C-alpha cells in the first residue's frame, strides 16, 4: 500500500527539485511522481511506501519557498500510522557521526 502527497506550488525553477530532495535527504523512496504544469500554480503528486513516510515529510515540504499547499491524503491510511518512525536501532559506532 502506498501513501500519497499532493502539492501545489508556484511554477518557479527549482521547486520540483526541492520537493524531490526532501524525500531523498530523509531516505524515503519515491514510488511514483506526477508533475503537472499548466501555468502557475503547478501540481506535484508523490506516492511513497507508507503513511509514516508521508507524515515525516509533509511539514518540510510545506515550508519550501514557492510551495503553496501540501497535504497527505489519508485514504488508505495504514492503521496506527500516527507515530512516524524516525530512528531505527543503530549500533554505537554508527551513532558517533
Amino acid at each position, binding site marked *: 500500500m502506498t501513501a500519497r502527497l499532493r502539492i501545489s506550488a508556484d511554477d518557479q*525553477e*527549482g521547486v520540483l527539485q526541492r520537493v524531490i530532495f526532501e524525500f531523498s535527504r530523509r531516505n524515503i523512496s519515491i514510488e511514483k511522481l506526477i508533475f503537472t504544469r499548466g501555468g502557475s500554480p503547478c501540481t506535484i503528486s508523490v506516492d511513497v511506501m507508507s503513511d509514516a513516510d508521508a507524515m515525516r515529510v509533509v511539514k518540510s515540504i510545506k515550508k519550501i*519557498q514557492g510551495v503553496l499547499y501540501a497535504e497527505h491524503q489519508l485514504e488508505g491510511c495504514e492503521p496506527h500510522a500516527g507515530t512516524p518512525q524516525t530512528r531505527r536501532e543503530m549500533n*554505537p*559506532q554508527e*551513532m*558517533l557521526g
Partner: protein
Amino acid sequence: MRGAKLLVNTLAEHGVRTIFGIPGGANLAIYDEIGASSITHVLTRHEGGAAHMADGYARVSGRPGICLGTSGPGATNMITGVATAYLDSSPVVCLTGQVSTKMMGNDAFQESNTFDMMIPVTKSNFKVRFPEEIPYLVGKAFAVAVSGRFGPVAIDIPSDTVANELSGEPHLSSTTVTAPSDLSNLQPAVSMLNAAQRPAILVGGGAKWARCGEAVLELAELLGAPVVSTVMGKGAVREDHPLAMGTTGMHGRRSSALVLDEADVVLAIATRFSDRTTGKTGEFLTKTGIIHVDIDNAEIGKNVKNIVGITGNCGEIIELLKNSVDRNTERRTEWMTRIMAARSFCQCDFDINESPLKPQKVISQLSKMLPDDAIITTDVGQHQMFAAHFFEVRGHRRFITSGGLGTMGFGLPSAIGAKVAEPGAKVICLTGDGGFQMTFGEFATAVENRIPVFVVVMNNASLGMIRQFQKQFYGNHIFAADYGRSPDFVKFAESMGGEGVVVEKAGEVAEAIRRGLASDVPFVADMKLDINEDCLPMTPPWAGRNGTIYGRCKWKDVNDGQIKNFGR
C-alpha cells in the same frame, strides 16, 4: 546600464557594505562594478573562506552576509560554507558567477550545475535569466534569507546577464515573505507552566537570532526555572545569571542534565533537538511535559514527539508567556534550592596548572580575561566542546560555532567576518591545529585587510576528537589522527605580517592572551597542549546518563543517593 551595475546598485540599496569573495572569469563584470562602488570588498584566499566570513558577519550583525565567487570551482568551493550557514540558520546571500546562458549545458570551461547543487544547502535559490530581473531576485533573496527561520539563499548569475546592457525596464521588487505562526497551543502551554512543580527552560540557537536572551531570563525568574543551553544556544543567555546552568548534550554539564532529567515541564525554545543534544532519545525527557516554541513549524514534533507546539517568533512568544504565566517562585522554593545546589557544585575549578599544558587552563584564562563584549568563534573538535562546557558567556559576549554541520575550518574566517561586522569588539578565534590548517590561508586575508583577529590555536598535534573517539570506542586503535608534522604557526603568522607566540607552560598563558588582545595586527597564540587530555565529561549517544565518561569531572564521585539529596 549593464546588468552588473544594476546588481551592485541593488546590493547597495539593500544595505550591503562589504562583500567577501574571489573574482573569476564569470563574475568579472560584477567585480568591475564593485570596484567603482562604495561597497568594500574583502579578497579571500578561498571561496569557502568567503562563505564562512559572510556567515560570521551575519551571526554578529543579524543582517545578511554576502559572498561572491565565480562559476564552477568558485561555486563548489562555497558549498561547504553555505551548508554550514544552512544548518545553523544563518542568512548568507551567496552570489555565484555562471557561464553565459548561451554556453550552459555544453560543459563549458568552469561550468558546473550550481543551481541544482545549491538546492539542498539553501533555503531558496535563484538563477538570473535576463538582467532586468536582477533587482527583483536580489530583493526576494534578501527577504527570504531574513524571514521566518533565517537561512542562506544563492543567486546564480550567468555572465551575459551582467555583462550586457538592459534592454527594458528593471523588474522592481517589494517582496515580503511572512512566516506562518500558530499560537493555538499558547493557553495550554501557560496552564502547563503554571501547574508545573519543576519547570525548566531549554534554549537553542534560534534564541540568539531572535536576540531574546534577556526575555528568556525574565521568564525564568518568573517561573523559578533553570535555563539550560544547547551548544548552538550557548550565548543566548548570559551564563553568570544564577538560573543559567550552561550547556547540555554529549559534552554538556551534569548539572544541566540533572535539571532536564528532573523537570516535570520543559519549555524548549528554538531548538531542533539535535542528536548531540538529546543523546539516547529513548531516555530523553520521556516523563516530561514538553512545550516546543519554534519559528519553523517543521521542527515541531520532528525529533521529539508528544509535545505541545507553538509556532512563531520566539521573542514574541516569550513576551506573551511572560504576560500570561503566574509568578510562582514561592511554590517552587524546593526546586530552586536544588537547582542552586547543583549549579554551585558544577562551578568547578578547571584552572589546571599542570605540565604539559592542559586545554582547560587556556579556556579558564580566556574566560577570565576576555572583555564582556568579546566575540569568540570556534572551530570544531575538542576545543569547541571544552569551550562550550567551560567558557563563560557573560555580559554581552558572543559565542559563534558551527554546531550543525560541524565544519572544521570555520573558526578563522568566521572570526574575520565577525570582526568586519563589529570592528570595535575583540574577536577571538579558538581553533585546533587541525581546523586552523584547513583555512589558515585566510590569516593573510586578515593581515592584508587590517582585521586584527586573535587566533588561539589549541595545538595538540592531532585531530583530538578523532583520537579520543578511537581511544574510547575503537579499542585504542589510533590511526590517521596524529600529525607527524605541522607548520610553525608563529613563523607562519610572522611571514604574513602578523605576530605570534608559542605557549608551552601554564604560567605563560595569561601573558599570551594579554598580547593577543592588545595586538593591532592578527595574532596567533600557539598553545602546545597535552595530546592525551580527552574532552570530558562525555556521554556517548547510546549510553544514557549512566554511561557518562567523567574523567576529571568531580561528578564521578557522586552516587545516586547523594544526587537525590542535593539541596535538601
